[in-house]
């Protein structure tokens, strides 16, 4: 306990410098600003805004990126409630009752309870990360190369099972990501692999280039092809602060949503995506009158929003303690950390304690800021929502171009991102999800490293993966989950869950 307190004290000491509070504030602000734009989800938001953190110190950059992430999440909820467009899978649930509330003139209350629920969930999740971060990091030090490899296999299996759409296509996307990660010089022999004779490819494909091509440019192309119908709420936003009855109705759903979301978020696969769905289902099932759901029930906004935010934050746990990104957003965080010379993993806590605890403390500050800045600024966000797409997309275009160029000051990178934009457009047309590709790309590099190291240590004996108890357990777990997910009866249930 005292250890926890001293860690938090260290963290707040780092995060509460005037400079870092400033970066956290700017991050939350611009994150919300971009996240509010319809059709721009958290992944695209972080990819677009990544370059503005390049010039900063690593700690400040990560604090700002985390702020951008929360801002983007919250901005997505705002769009879901006001325009009925979910920025990403986790905001789908919020559109159900949130947009109905908005249509009834209770948009302000919906936004207010979403912010308050998110703050409570964020506070709990921050404490959880602080409490189990250190023990988990120590546990992670026991992991050998083979165990790491098996853990990543388990993570990939989770991500595949939880991806929306076809399982086969999700596996294909992850594998394509892994394939792309092998482009460039070989780790051990230094031979160029699949570089097409291009000098600039010997360092491999830059992560930011891939992300901005797939999520920046391709998203614009998608939106230009089929403009989404915008049902911006015409009613007044109304009062922001929920009244007593609203609080009474939402307090338990927020508590339940927080716990559900926090637990699911820790899963090595993309567990965070399940949180809002699970919370919504629970609330609907235990409600006295389930028929109110879908017609503007405040519980249907409060619970899932809390679950969403709790999961969004506990998803940092596998990243910070094991160095393994559980989803595409965390994969972006790995990319950002690498750019700043920080290798995520258990050693971060011992080697850069100020960075580790500073980031955790800033999570809570970021959540507080969202509550403080977003509610008063809601009028500004609404005005932002009304910016026509014909002006929005040239702005995104310009930002992405300059951003990619600034990663390495290489025009080649910009051209390569254009190529990945075309690839992303093809993926959308062929109904592939690009997010698993990004996850596979980041995991692929780590997996090859651990796989080859494990094989080297075992002198080429592949039995090492089943002889080590930890590795064997993880692999069996992965196999079981994949098997269960492929069972026809469960598949139908899963499809239903994503339909809902």
């Amino acid at each position, binding site marked *: 306990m005292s250890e926890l307190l001293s860690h938090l004290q260290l963290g707040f000491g780092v995060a509460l410098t005037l400079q870092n509070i400033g970066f956290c504030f700017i991050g939350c602000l611009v994150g919300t600003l971009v996240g509010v734009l319809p059709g721009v989800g958290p992944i695209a938001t972080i990819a677009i805004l990544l370059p503005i953190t390049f010039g900063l110190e690593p700690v400040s950059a990560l604090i700002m990126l985390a702020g951008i992430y929360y801002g983007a999440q919250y901005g997505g909820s705002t769009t879901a409630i006001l325009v009925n467009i979910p920025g990403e899978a986790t905001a789908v649930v919020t559109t159900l009752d949130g947009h109905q509330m908005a249509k009834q003139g209770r948009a302000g209350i919906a936004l207010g309870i979403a912010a308050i629920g998110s703050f409570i969930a964020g506070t709990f999740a921050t404490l959880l990360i602080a409490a189990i971060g250190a023990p988990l990091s120590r546990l992670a030090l026991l992991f050998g190369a083979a165990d790491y490899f098996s853990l990543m296999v388990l993570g990939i299996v989770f991500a595949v099972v939880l991806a929306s759409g076809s399982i086969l296509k999700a596996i294909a996307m992850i594998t394509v990501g892994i*394939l792309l990660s092998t482009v460039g010089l070989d780790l051990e022999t230094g031979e160029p692999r699949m570089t097409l004779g291009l000098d600039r490819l010997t360092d491999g494909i830059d992560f930011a280039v891939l992300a901005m091509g797939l999520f920046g440019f391709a998203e614009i192309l998608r939106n230009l092809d089929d403009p989404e119908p915008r049902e911006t709420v015409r009613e007044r936003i109304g009062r922001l602060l929920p009244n007593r009855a609203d609080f009474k109705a939402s307090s338990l759903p927020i508590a339940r949503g927080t716990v559900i979301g926090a637990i699911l978020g820790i899963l090595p696969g993309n567990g965070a995506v399940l949180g809002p769905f699970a919370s919504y289902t629970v609330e609907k099932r235990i409600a006295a009158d389930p028929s109110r759901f879908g017609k503007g029930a405040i519980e249907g906004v409060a619970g899932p929003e809390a679950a969403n935010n709790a999961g969004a934050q506990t998803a940092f746990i596998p990243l910070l303690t094991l160095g393994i990104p559980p989803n595409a957003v965390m994969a972006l965080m790995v990319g950002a950390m690498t750019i700043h010379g920080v290798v995520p993993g258990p050693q971060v806590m011992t080697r850069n304690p100020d960075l580790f605890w500073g980031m955790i403390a800033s999570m809570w500050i970021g959540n507080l800021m969202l509550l403080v800045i977003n509610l008063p600024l809601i009028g500004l966000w609404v005005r932002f929502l009304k910016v026509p797409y014909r002006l929005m997309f040239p702005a995104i275009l310009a930002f992405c171009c300059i951003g990619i160029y600034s990663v390495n000051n290489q025009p080649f990178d*910009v051209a390569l991102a254009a190529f990945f934009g075309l690839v992303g457009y093809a993926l959308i047309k062929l109904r592939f999800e690009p997010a698993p590709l990004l996850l596979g790309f980041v995991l692929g590099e780590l997996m090859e490293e651990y796989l080859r190291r494990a094989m080297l240590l075992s002198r080429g004996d592949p039995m090492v993966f089943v002889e080590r108890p930890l590795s064997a357990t993880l692999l069996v777990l992965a196999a079981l989950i994949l098997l269960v997910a492929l069972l026809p009866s469960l598949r139908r249930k899963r499809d239903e869950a994503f339909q809902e």
Partner: protein
Amino acid sequence: MDPAPAKRRPPPLARTDVVAGLALIALGAAAFWLTADLAGSRGPLLGPGSLPRAAAGIILGLGALIAILGWLHDDVPAAPWRLRGPLFLLGAVLVFALLVRTLGLAVATPAAILIGGLASRETRPVEIVVFAVLLTAFCIALFRYALGLPIPIAPWAGL
């Protein structure tokens, strides 16, 4: 979308999953070809070619499976590709890449915005020109001066 009778299945090569599977097969084959000269496993140890070829093999297999399943079950017609969006938007990105070093942000940014603007039918000529000027000024102020990134603004004017 299409008001035509829904029962009619599109021809095999116009079904989303058939095309998707074939695309994966092409990618897998290309990866095999590109990694042909890399050493695979040397004895018991993995070589530089091992993992890429394993991934390529999985992609080939999945591609075949998706294409066959699509041939048998898929009814979703492949979405039409539009030329205008990709052509002008990605063309704008390429123009930016070509110009940024030599002519700097002051030229490359508005050029990209104006060419990119052609990607949408809704773009209005006067509006986009004004917007390009304002946005360029904003980007220069933000990236060069506020963030201090070493991007050339106008090398021809010594900036």
